[in-house]
């Protein structure tokens, strides 16, 4: 086609008074946006820019500004510029729109409409710098049936884990960073559905391995190496959709870890072909329990969808020790945009409903609840715990700590920050020694903040916070939303 109606998404502005022609922007842009002629004339191909900000951040004189391209369609509340641009793109390609990261649309974020309580006069607040605060959390079935027997438990020093991101979707250096940080802080990282690389076996005491519909990398050693096994049924970014790792990302190393041929597409089917009912799920859970000789908790991860309370109840009854619920803000390396932006329900609603349903049915003690999908800060963590979670998974927040700038182009494999890529030249941009420190710092910072907030509420143990809905009030919410969340309105 001769004419492309798509204007560039971003514009690159170079301040000539500041540019020193050093070439850092050129050598750091894997999308080949920046160019310099032999006579030092510089020019840009803005069509290639994804807005990852790598050049702007590394430019030593801050000569570059990357902003959204100032094409203003005539204002229209129904037809947003995103809708118009997406149609232009599809009219060129005839294909499904792909995207990365989590749902960015303007749906309500309930976390932002919940306020924490604090102690005043009638009950004392606690200073976490002077008094002990307990954040240690155990994940697993607490209901062994016999007083002298315990089901296997996962110990977390902080109730925050790194969520499943597979080798292939992210670089090995990302996994090394997260694994080292998890070991240092005393929490867990998750392999995702991409197998466990040989270099990461040393972190096995802090590793959750995933068994998903493609069964990539699953073998007896893999199960043996883990602290827990997670069955992934679905993920928040693409409920009901399988996975597709493009062949160009399946390097020899990725292929070996996944136990598939190199450079072949790694396709995870939408359903597990051996799970069509709760009874089938129970069989797989028991199979994994037997394979690990009942020594490791078995988690089941599902996306938060309309009937999540009943689904979670079934999962607990099928024998899962941990239920992971991934809300609709959950991210991914690649998903069809329409699925990501229009499917699922908010994690806050799902969490409150599942917790209440399990309590009502008297089975809450049989499984721990883990919330995932869109946890942005320690305040979100604490609100999730109050709504009923035992712990949370963070994925996007961890990647941002490693340098991710949320350009949502993970699926291209050309991540300039060395995160969502398997290209050796790009992967090396994330030094795992540095990454481990940054990811560890994030958890340490959040741990301090959680203790501060708990202290303010006069609570010194995270166990006293879990499901303690009186510590939350809703603001700017309708009555039915407050009832679904199980919280009172601010002022009540």
């Amino acid at each position, binding site marked *: 086609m001769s004419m492309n109606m798509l204007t560039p998404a971003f514009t690159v502005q170079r301040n000539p008074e500041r540019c020193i022609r050093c070439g850092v922007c050129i*050598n750091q842009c894997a999308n080949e946006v920046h160019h310099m002629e032999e006579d030092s004339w510089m020019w840009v191909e803005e069509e290639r820019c994804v807005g990852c900000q790598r050049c702007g951040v590394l430019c*030593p004189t801050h000569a570059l500004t990357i902003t959204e391209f100032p094409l203003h369609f005539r204002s229209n509340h129904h037809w947003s510029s995103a809708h118009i641009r997406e149609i232009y793109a599809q009219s060129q390609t005839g294909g499904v729109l792909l995207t990365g990261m989590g749902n960015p649309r303007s749906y309500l974020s309930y976390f932002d409409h919940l306020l924490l309580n604090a102690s005043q006069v009638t009950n004392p607040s606690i200073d976490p710098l002077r008094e002990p605060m307990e954040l240690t959390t155990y994940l697993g079935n607490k209901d062994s049936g016999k007083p002298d027997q315990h089901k296997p438990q996962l110990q977390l020093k902080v109730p925050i884990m790194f969520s499943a991101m597979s080798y292939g979707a992210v670089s090995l250096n990302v996994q090394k960073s997260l694994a080292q940080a998890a070991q240092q802080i005393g929490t867990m990282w998750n392999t995702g559905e991409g197998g466990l690389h040989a270099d990461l076996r040393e972190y096995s005491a802090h590793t959750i391995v995933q068994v998903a519909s493609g069964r990539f990398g699953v073998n007896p050693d893999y199960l043996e190496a883990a602290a827990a096994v997670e069955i992934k049924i679905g993920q928040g970014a693409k409920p009901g959709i399988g996975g597709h790792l493009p062949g160009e990302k399946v390097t020899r190393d990725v292929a070996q870890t996944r136990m598939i041929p190199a450079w072949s597409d790694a396709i995870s089917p939408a359903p597990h072909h051996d799970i069509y009912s709760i009874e089938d799920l129970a069989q797989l859970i028991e199979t994994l329990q037997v394979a690990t000789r009942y020594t490791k908790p078995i988690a089941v991860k599902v996306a938060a969808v309309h009937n999540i309370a009943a689904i979670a109840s079934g999962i607990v009854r099928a024998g899962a020790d941990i239920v992971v619920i991934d809300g609709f803000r959950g991210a991914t390396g690649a998903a069809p945009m329409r699925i990501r932006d229009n499917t699922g329900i908010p994690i806050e609603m799902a969490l409150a409903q599942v917790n209440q349903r399990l309590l009502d049915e008297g089975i809450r003690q049989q499984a721990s609840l883990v919330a995932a999908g869109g946890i942005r800060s320690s305040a979100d963590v604490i609100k999730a715990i109050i709504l009923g979670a035992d712990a949370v998974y963070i994925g996007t927040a961890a990647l941002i700590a490693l340098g991710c700038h949320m350009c949502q182009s993970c699926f291209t494999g050309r991540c300039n920050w060395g995160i969502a890529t398997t290209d050796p030249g790009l992967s090396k941009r994330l030094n795992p020694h540095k990454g481990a420190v940054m990811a560890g710092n994030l958890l340490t910072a959040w741990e301090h903040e959680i203790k501060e907030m708990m202290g303010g509420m006069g609570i010194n143990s995270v166990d006293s916070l879990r499901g303690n809905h009186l510590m939350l009030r809703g603001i700017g919410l309708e009555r039915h939303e407050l009832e679904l969340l199980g919280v009172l309105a601010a002022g009540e």
Partner: protein
Amino acid sequence: MIVKVVCSAEYCLGCGLCRIHCAAGHDGYNNSILKAYQRGTPRPRADLVYDQDRSWLNTCQHCPDAPCMNGCITGALQQDEQGVIYVDEEFCVSCYTCIMLCPYGHIHVGPQAVHKCDLCRGRSGQPACVDACPNGALRLIDEGESLCSM
């Protein structure tokens, strides 16, 4: 005692920020990159070496029995108590004996005197290149410290 900057080629991006900050940190530019590159003559003290898909910073080893210092005819090349070998520009006569003696090519011709890495003597904290490396590929090491322990 040996102190020097070492580069891990495994994590070197070849971006060149180390050299830019090196140049701005010397010759009186007071860490102003714009002044060094737009008003002055930037003179980085180290070179980036590219080899296929790898790169690394090639910089002075601050040898314990340094040939450059031994061969200097005026005593302009000196070693301080930390083991840093530096050029005292007042004494340099630009005979370039040191340039010929350095087996690594770490000493460069300058307008008034030769110049070489001085590990940013007088700067507080780490050398400019180490501070500027976006990927932690550069480290200042002391004698006896394992290179592999990063």
